[in-house]
């Protein structure tokens, strides 16, 4: 949707304080200007965009957030020339926990199933839901296609959330227009937000321990290496799907694989949006996310280095450092989130 009003206003504030750099749409629109000589021509692609919605594991009490989300899905479904039929992945546990709720059943039948294909699956966690959805879409896709993951458990019903929804389409479009392999969407968070704390003291600290060179490359693009907002090109998704699918933190894994394979990475700011209530704002899930990140990084490191003669000595050395990093992260998270 281009530069948002909120972003423009935010930038206008920066401008007023003479601390501003950036790009802002000028109003009114200029419609008479000739095309700039030498302008880039977008790489036309016949590729379709495959939206994959991850239905919230825990059904929210109010449907406003999901209604906003499926408003977007309805708009995408109405453009079959650009978008494949959207997919919604729904965990069977979610389904059975809500089976007696009339409102849920109506919403599932009259909205979710109307605008998307529901894939019901028994999943151990969200990462498995991603695997199910991305895998199903991939099998229907083609060489030039792009796969766009849309997490369902955010407060899209708020004005800020609706603005985010309005701009999420930039992620797959960047891949198509600029010939990228993966585009990560970044959301704004405060310095004391649990996501920010986890990424700063957990994810990046652990990445710098296990994969220091790759961590630097990733951080050149994003401060949110666990983002749930991303789009990925067909050929790169093929590589990702056919390699080992680790049980946690798929965006981190994908970014590492992108760096290993020298893929084209982009990052795009999608706005300010929060997890639905019951998300990961408290200490226990925050600690769990740090522990999961450590587990997946250790697994990846072992898989990449187990053929070296001295790998176990180096592994034990890194494991000691990693434990210190994790303990420090736990202390910081405990200080901020309790």
């Amino acid at each position, binding site marked *: *949707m*281009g*530069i948002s009003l909120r*972003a423009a206003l935010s*930038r206008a504030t*920066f*401008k007023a304080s*003479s*601390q*501003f*750099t*950036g*790009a*802002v*749409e*000028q109003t009114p*629109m*200029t*419609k008479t*200007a*000739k*095309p*700039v*000589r*030498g*302008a*880039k021509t*977008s790489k036309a692609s016949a590729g379709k965009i495959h939206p994959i919605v991850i239905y919230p594991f825990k059904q929210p009490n109010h449907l406003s957030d999901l209604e906003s989300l499926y408003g977007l899905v309805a708009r995408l479904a109405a453009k079959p020339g650009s978008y494949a039929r959207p997919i919604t992945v729904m965990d069977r546990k979610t389904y059975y926990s809500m089976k007696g709720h009339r409102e849920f059943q109506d919403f599932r039948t009259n909205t979710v199933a109307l605008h998307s294909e529901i894939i019901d699956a028994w999943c151990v966690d969200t990462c498995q839901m991603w695997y199910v959805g991305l895998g199903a879409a991939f099998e229907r896709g083609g060489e030039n296609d792009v796969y766009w993951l849309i997490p369902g458990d955010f407060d899209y019903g708020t004005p800020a959330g609706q603005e985010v929804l309005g*701009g999420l389409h*930039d992620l797959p*479009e*960047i891949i198509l*227009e*600029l010939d*990228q392999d993966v585009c990560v969407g970044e959301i704004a968070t405060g310095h004391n937000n649990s996501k920010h704390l986890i990424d700063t003291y957990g994810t990046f600290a652990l990445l710098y321990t296990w994969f220091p060179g790759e961590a630097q490359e990733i951080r*050149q*693009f*994003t401060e949110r290496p666990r983002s749930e907002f991303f789009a990925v090109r067909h050929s790169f998704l093929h590589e990702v799907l056919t390699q080992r699918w680790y049980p946690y933190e798929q965006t981190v894994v994908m970014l590492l694989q992108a760096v290993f394979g020298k893929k*084209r*990475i*982009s*990052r*795009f*700011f999608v706005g300010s949006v929060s997890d639905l209530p019951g998300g990961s704002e408290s200490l226990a899930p925050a600690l769990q996310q740090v522990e999961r990140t450590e587990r997946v990084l250790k697994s990846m490191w072992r898989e990449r280095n187990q053929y070296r003669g001295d790998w176990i000595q180096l592994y034990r050395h890194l494991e000691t450092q990693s434990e210190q990093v994790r303990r420090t992260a736990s202390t910081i998270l405990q200080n901020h989130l309790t």
Partner: protein
Amino acid sequence: MRAINFICHAPQATKVSIVGDFNNWNPAANPMKHMPDRSWLTTINLKHGHHRYAFLIDGVLSLDPHAQGITRNDMGERVSLVPVS
């Protein structure tokens, strides 16, 4: 086409221009004007889509710290992204 204002805060710079896909990364194509608040400004008409760009501050390619995105150009350099609706 939309007119986009690009503003770069580089108070100590003597010469700033903007380079991007829209001007074939030509440093001479879009010089920026020094404003009274010591920022640098230029306006460029851009068509719908996503455009890669960077500021050239006294010859040094610089990211826009307030850009909406980051990617790489065809030279493999990190550059900024602007969407135009």
